[in-house]
């Protein structure tokens, strides 16, 4: 590919790819793959923590606005340097390790967490031709790496020798294992439709347009259901409201990182947000067309910009939820995972299969739309009703005494 031969939008689109190649050009041929990978890693390690910094400000300001407050606005213009101040603070803060804590494990836990989460970014396509390792089993890689974060959380909770920490860690691990199942299951529909585990292929499969509208999976009944289920499971996986019980401060003080301070705490914080971003990134890849533009006429905007815009939107949604919802209880969370999420994801799998076999002939397309949407809706309403009624939940009327 020749950079000069491309049009301007294409140039912009491939800007980072060419920067990578340009740097690689300085090195002898047999070093180039290593250098290329290093450049990519540096790019990811630099950009996502930067987004994390942005997200913390955004979160605090957004929550503030939702709560009729201003949020941080003292450090720098509009408070955008707040994360810098926070970073300096957490770096200079005393690092307290409880006397009875298991020093090595206590130290390793945040490191393992952050490393594992960073690994997950390797197969995340953040733009056209912009994926660190394009492997066949990219999605599987992400889930495999994601699963290992649980261990670091356990390490943190166990090594702190604190009842709250241990309870928080147990809750977190139980929750993450439980929600991993629906997370995987809801992601599988996209894999089924694409016929590949490769994240790049999944995005490419969604890159077409009908008129101006894209072929994102979210615009199909199974895709929509899968997306919603994926979002719910992702919220639980990343311990975000309303599933933030592992760190539910009203019960467990701060959950598994109660005994962490200073930079280790900051690492946990970073890990949490990076996890959130990577899972949001995969959600985007699976259902929201990855780096594809939402309308065909917007194709001139670089693909990576679209990816980051979608990521930002997803993060804002997470923040929005956090500003609104109270949290569930442990048993309700589990019930929800096994009694609602799992059946729904299984049903969604079947619906997706049916969709595939009904074909997309002119009449079939219409029929399968109604059929699949109907089945999913019916199941949702029915299951929801049954679950609510079983727990005797519902609106109430009140009487008055004069």
């Amino acid at each position, binding site marked *: 590919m020749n950079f000069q031969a491309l049009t301007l939008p294409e140039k912009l689109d491939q800007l980072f790819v060419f920067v990578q190649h340009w740097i690689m050009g300085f090195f002898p041929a047999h070093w180039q793959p290593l250098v290329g990978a290093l450049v990519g890693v540096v790019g990811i390690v630099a950009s996502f923590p930067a987004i994390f910094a942005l997200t913390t400000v955004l979160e605090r300001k*957004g929550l503030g*606005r*939702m*709560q*009729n*407050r*201003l949020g941080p*606005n003292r450090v720098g213009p509009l408070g955008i340097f707040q994360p810098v101040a926070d970073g300096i603070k957490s770096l200079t803060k005393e690092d307290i390790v409880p006397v009875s804590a298991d020093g090595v494990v206590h130290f390793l836990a945040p490191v393992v967490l952050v490393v594992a989460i960073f690994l997950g970014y390797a197969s995340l396509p953040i733009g056209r031709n912009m994926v660190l390792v394009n492997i066949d089993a990219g999605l599987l890689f992400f889930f495999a790496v994601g699963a290992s974060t649980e261990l670091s959380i356990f390490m943190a909770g166990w090594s702190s020798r604190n009842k709250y920490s241990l309870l928080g860690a147990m809750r977190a691990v139980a929750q993450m294992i439980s929600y991993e199942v629906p997370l995987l299951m809801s992601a599988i529909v996209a894999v089924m439709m694409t016929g590949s585990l490769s994240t790049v292929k999944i995005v490419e499969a969604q890159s077409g347009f009908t008129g101006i509208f894209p072929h994102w999976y979210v615009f199909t009944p199974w895709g929509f259901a899968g997306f919603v289920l994926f979002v719910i499971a992702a919220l639980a996986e990343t311990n975000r409201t309303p599933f933030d019980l592992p760190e539910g401060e009203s019960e467990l003080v701060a959950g598994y990182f109660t005994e962490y301070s200073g930079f280790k705490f900051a690492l946990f914080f970073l890990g949490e947000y990076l996890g959130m971003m990577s899972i949001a990134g995969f959600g985007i890849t699976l259902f929201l067309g990855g780096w594809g533009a939402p309308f065909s006429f917007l194709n001139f905007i670089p693909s990576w910009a679209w990816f980051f815009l979608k990521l930002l939107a997803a993060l804002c949604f997470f923040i*929005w*939820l956090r*500003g*609104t*919802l109270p949290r569930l209880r442990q048993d309700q969370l589990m019930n929800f995972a096994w009694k609602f999420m799992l059946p729904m994801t299984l049903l969604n799998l079947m619906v997706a299969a049916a969709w595939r076999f009904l074909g997309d002939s002119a009449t079939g397309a219409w029929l399968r739309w109604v059929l699949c949407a109907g089945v999913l809706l019916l199941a*949702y*309403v029915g299951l*929801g*009703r049954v679950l*609510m009624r079983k727990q005797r939940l*519902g*609106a109430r009327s009140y009487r008055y005494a004069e």
Partner: protein
Amino acid sequence: MLGEGIVKGLAETAKNFAGSFVSKERLTTVQYPEERVEPIENTRDFPFLVYDGSDPMAGLRCVACQICEKECPPKCIYITKSTDKKPDYVGKPQIYPARFDIDISVCMSCQICVEVCPFEAIKMDTEFELSTTDRFEGLILDREQLAKSNEYYNKIHPTEAAEVDARLAEEKAKVEAKAKAAAAAAAAKAAAPASGETTAKPAPQKDPAKEPGA
């Protein structure tokens, strides 16, 4: 049910989020050191001593009667009576406080001292930025620090101060009239050959109606 409640809630927070950019109602923060809320006239923080005239120490209305010291619920007022007397604002010789300290680290701003003071000598301030680096000595205000002019009182509590001034003026007029009458009587008496001295002992000031608004 089935998520409508959650969606409704989300709509509500979204409304507040959007509203915070357009409506003052939804963004109530006042950024304190730069911005300040309008002072509220009735605000009370810590007591101060009112003086008349220009010399703070000479013009103190306080006569060291120690009623406030006794009535103060947390007992944060410390008064030492003077041994001599000096003229008060109506010119009558009065005992004055040789020491009048208020420990504002103990004071709970309850205003009981103001209510019980029969001389309108102690009032509530609105100054609240009293932080100091010395938490012991810095928070015990002595009479020099406590003394503030009647003009200041008029400035911070105009309505209340106007009433107090009116009342005091009335008192003063009464006292003066009495003094005049006494002087006249004295003069009349002096005209008569006998006794010389009847000090125009002004009646102790009556307890003015306590509720400033009544």
